[in-house]
C-alpha cells in the first residue's frame, strides 16, 4: 500500500466513523422532536397531565441527544474541507449553497428556539412555548431536506455544468439540482426511518417499564403506592403511541424502500447488483440470494439459500425480467459487494421485524392485551435499538454502494481527497475514535439512566390536581378517558 492509498483509506474511515456516529443522533432527534410537538399539542388540547409528564420526560432525553447531534454535526461541516478539499473545491459551487441553506433555514431555527423549548416554559407561556417546540421539530425536518438533497445530488447528479477551473457549477435551474432523481425517495425513506427509529425507542422504554412494573406487582401485589397511577398511565400511553407508530409506519417504510430501490436500480444499477450479490447477468430472471457470501475477487457469490426469479420479481416486478450483473461493469467501477450485500440484508431483515412488532401490537390491541402481554413487551424491548442499526446499515448500503465515486460517475473518491499526510490523518482518526466513544458513550449512559427512571407526574402547579391511586385497593380503576384525569386501567387488568 502506498502512502497515498493509506491516507485515502484513513480519511475514508474517519469520514465513515464520524458520520455514522453523527447520523445516530439526528435519526433519533428528528422523530423525537415531532413526538414532543405532538405530546405538547395534545396536552394543550386536552389538558391531560399525562401528556405533559411525557413531554417533560422525553424533553430531557431530547436535550442530551440533540446536544450530541449538534457537536458531532459541527465536525461534519468542517470535515468536507479538512479531508476532502478537492471535492469541496470542485463541488462547492453546487453543494455549498445547499448546505448554506440548511444552516440558514434549519440550524438557526433549531438553535434559536431550542433554548426556549428547553428552559422557557415559565417565561413565554404555553402558546409561544408550543410554537418554539414546533419550530424545533420543523427545523429538524428542514435540515434533513437540505442535507439529503446534497447527498442525493452526489448519488444522482443533475443540473450541473463544468467550468474552466474544473468545478461543477449550476447548469440551469437550481430546482434540477435540489430535486435530483433520487432525492424524493431518499428523503421520504430517511425521514420515515427516523420516525420509526424514535417509535421503537419510545416503545422499548414503555415496554421496559411495563415489564418492570409487572414484576414489581408480582412481588408485592397489594402495594398500590408502588405504581402511581399517572406514571402508569404515562407508560401505557407512550407504549401505545409507539406501537401505533410502528404498526402504521413500518409497512409504509417497506413500500417506500421498495420504490427507493427501484429508483436506485434505474440510476445506480451497479449498487443494486452488489446489494443483490449478482455478478453474473440473468437474461431470464434472477434469483434472490437470501444467504450467501459475495467474493469480489473471484467475481462470484457463494450461495447458501436462494429463491428462483425472486430478485427480478422484486426489482422489476416481473419474474422473467433480465438483470445485468456486476461483471457487465468495469472492475474499477464496482462497489464492494461484500459489505453492502450484508448491510442491505440487515436493514431489510430489521424492517420486517419492525413490521412484525407492529402487527403483533395490533393483535394485542384487538385482544385487549396491549399492556399485558410480556412476550410482546420483551420483543418491543429487544427491538429498541433496531431502528439505529437499520438506519446505519441502510446508510452504509447507500454510501458504500456509491463507491468508487464520491459524485456518481463524475468524481472518484480517491481523486477528491485533501493533501493531508498519513500521520496527521491517523492521529485525527485516533482522536475522533477515542473522544467519540468516551463522550457519546457516556451520553448514551445518561440517556439510558433517564429512560430507566421512567416518567413521573409533572410539576405540581401544572397538573390539574394531585393525582393519587384509587385508594388502598389496586387494580381496575373506574376512571374513563376524557372526563377524569385518572388513568384508564380497564384494558390492562388481568
Amino acid at each position, binding site marked *: 500500500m502506498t502512502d497515498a492509498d493509506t491516507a485515502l483509506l484513513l480519511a475514508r474511515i474517519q469520514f465513515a466513523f464520524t458520520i455514522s456516529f453523527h447520523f445516530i443522533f439526528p435519526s433519533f432527534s428528528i422523530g423525537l422532536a415531532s413526538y414532543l410537538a405532538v405530546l405538547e399539542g395534545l396536552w394543550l388540547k386536552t389538558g391531560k397531565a399525562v401528556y405533559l409528564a411525557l413531554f417533560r420526560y422525553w424533553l430531557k432525553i431530547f436535550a442530551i441527544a440533540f446536544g450530541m447531534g449538534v457537536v458531532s454535526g459541527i465536525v461534519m461541516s468542517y470535515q468536507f474541507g479538512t479531508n476532502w478539499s478537492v471535492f469541496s473545491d470542485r463541488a*462547492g459551487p453546487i453543494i455549498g449553497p445547499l*448546505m*448554506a441553506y440548511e*444552516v440558514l433555514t434549519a440550524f438557526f431555527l433549531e438553535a434559536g428556539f431550542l433554548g426556549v423549548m428547553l428552559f422557557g416554559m415559565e417565561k413565554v407561556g404555553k402558546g409561544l412555548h408550543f410554537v418554539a417546540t414546533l419550530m424545533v421539530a420543523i427545523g429538524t425536518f428542514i435540515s434533513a431536506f437540505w442535507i439529503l438533497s446534497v447527498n442525493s445530488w452526489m448519488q444522482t447528479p443533475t443540473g450541473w455544468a463544468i467550468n474552466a477551473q474544473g468545478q461543477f457549477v449550476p447548469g440551469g435551474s437550481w430546482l434540477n439540482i435540489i430535486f435530483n432523481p433520487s432525492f424524493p425517495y431518499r428523503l421520504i425513506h430517511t425521514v420515515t426511518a427516523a420516525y420509526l427509529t424514535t417509535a421503537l425507542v419510545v416503545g422499548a422504554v414503555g415496554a421496559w417499564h411495563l415489564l418492570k412494573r409487572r414484576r414489581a406487582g408480582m412481588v408485592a401485589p397489594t402495594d398500590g403506592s408502588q405504581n402511581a397511577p399517572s406514571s402508569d398511565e404515562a407508560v401505557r400511553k407512550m407504549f401505545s403511541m409507539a406501537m401505533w407508530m410502528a404498526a402504521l409506519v413500518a409497512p409504509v417504510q417497506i413500500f417506500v424502500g421498495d420504490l427507493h430501490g427501484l429508483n436506485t436500480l434505474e440510476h445506480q444499477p451497479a449498487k443494486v447488483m452488489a446489494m443483490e450479490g449478482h455478478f453474473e447477468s440473468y437474461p431470464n430472471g434472477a434469483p434472490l440470494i437470501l444467504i450467501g457470501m459475495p467474493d469480489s475477487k473471484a467475481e462470484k457469490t457463494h450461495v447458501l439459500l436462494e429463491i428462483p426469479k425472486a430478485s427480478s420479481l422484486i426489482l422489476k416486478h416481473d419474474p422473467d425480467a433480465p438483470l445485468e450483473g456486476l461483471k457487465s461493469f468495469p472492475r474499477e467501477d464496482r462497489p464492494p459487494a461484500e459489505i453492502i450485500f450484508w448491510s442491505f440484508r440487515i436493514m431489510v431483515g430489521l424492517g420486517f421485524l419492525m413490521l412484525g412488532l407492529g402487527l403483533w401490537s395490533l393483535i394485542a390491541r384487538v385482544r385487549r392485551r396491549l399492556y399485558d402481554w410480556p412476550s410482546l413487551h420483551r420483543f418491543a424491548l429487544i427491538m429498541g435499538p433496531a431502528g439505529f442499526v437499520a438506519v446505519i446499515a441502510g446508510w452504509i448500503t447507500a454510501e458504500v454502494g456509491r463507491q468508487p465515486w464520491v459524485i456518481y460517475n463524475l468524481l472518484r473518491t480517491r481523486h477528491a481527497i485533501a493533501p493531508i499526510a498519513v500521520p*496527521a490523518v491517523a492521529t485525527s482518526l485516533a482522536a475522533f475514535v477515542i473522544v467519540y466513544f468516551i463522550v457519546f458513550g457516556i451520553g448514551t449512559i445518561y440517556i439510558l439512566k433517564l429512560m430507566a427512571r421512567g416518567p413521573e407526574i409533572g410539576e405540581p402547579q401544572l397538573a390539574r390536581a394531585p393525582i393519587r391511586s384509587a385508594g388502598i385497593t389496586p387494580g381496575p380503576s373506574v376512571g374513563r378517558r376524557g372526563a377524569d384525569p385518572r388513568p384508564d386501567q380497564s384494558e390492562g387488568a388481568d
Partner: protein
Amino acid sequence: MDLTIVWAFLIAFAVAAYVVMDGFDLGIGILFPAFRVGKERDQAMNAIAPVWDGNETWLVLGGGGLMAAFPLAYAIILPALYAPLIAMLLGLVFRGVAFEFRWRDAAHRPWWDAAFCIGSMVATFAQGITLGALLQGITIEGRAYAGGWWEWLSPFSLLTGASLLVGYALLGAAWLIWKTEGEIQQDARRMAKWLLPALIAALAMVSLATPFLEAQYYQRWFEIPGLFVTIPMPLLVGVASFALWRSLKRDRDAHPFLWALSLFLLSMAGLAISMWPDVIPGRVTIWQAAAPHSSQAFMLVGASILIPIILGYTAWAYWVFRGKVGEGYH
C-alpha cells in the same frame, strides 16, 4: 453589483457574529475554574445555557458559507489548518456536551466542569492559531494547499492564539457582569480588571508584529492612504479601553460588555483592512476564490430574507432570557 463583494461582507459578518457571540460563552468556559464550585459555576453556566447552541451555529454558517461562496478558499485553508481545526472541533465536542452532562451526573460534575473549561480553551486557542496562520501566509500550489501539516505553527500563531484566549475571557467576564449579580458579579469584575490590560498588551503585540509578516500589510498600514487609518486606530482602541475600564470602576452592568464588544469589532476591522481584498492573504483574492455568479445569487436570495429573520428570533430568544440569571437547572 458585484456579488463577490457582497458575499465577502456576509462571510465577514458571520465570522464577526460568531466571534462576539460564541466569544463570550467560550470565555466563560475559559474562566470556569476561577468560579467557586456550586452556586457560582451554576450561575455562570445558566448565563449561556439557552444561547450557546445558537451562537455556535454562526461557526457553521461561517464554514458552510465559505464553502458555498468561496469554495477554493475553503479547500485550501481547511487542510492547511488541519491540526488546529481538528483540535477545535474536539474541544467544541467536550464543551458542548458538558452543558447537559454536568447536570445529569452530580458525582462526575468536576470532570464535566474540567471538560467544559479545557474544551473551551482548546477551541479558543485553535481559533486564534487559525487566525495567525492565515495572516502569516499559506503555501499553495495550483488549487491546493502545498505545505506540511505543521506549517501553521509559529511564534506569531501562538501569540494570536494566546491573545484570543485573553480576549474571549474578557468578553466572558463582561457578559457575566451583565447577566449576574452578587458575589459572582464581583468576581467577574475583578477578573475583567486583570484581563483588560492583558488584552491591550496582546493587541499591541499582534498589531506591531502583523505589518512585518507581509509587505502587503506594511504598505497598507504605513504608507498613504493607509496611514490615515493607522493613526486613528490605536486612538479608537484607546478610547474603547478607557471607557471599558471606567465602566468597570463605576460598577456598571451592561456597559463593560458593550465596550469589550467594540474592542473586538475594532480588531476585526483592522484585520479586514490588512487582508482586503484577499481571502488568503497575499495568495488568493476573493474574486479568484469566488463561486460562480449563479451560486452566489441563489444563496443571496435566501440570505437576504433569512438573515434578518434569524437576527429577529435570535434577538427574541435573548430577550426571553433577559435579566439576571439564577443558579437552578432550567
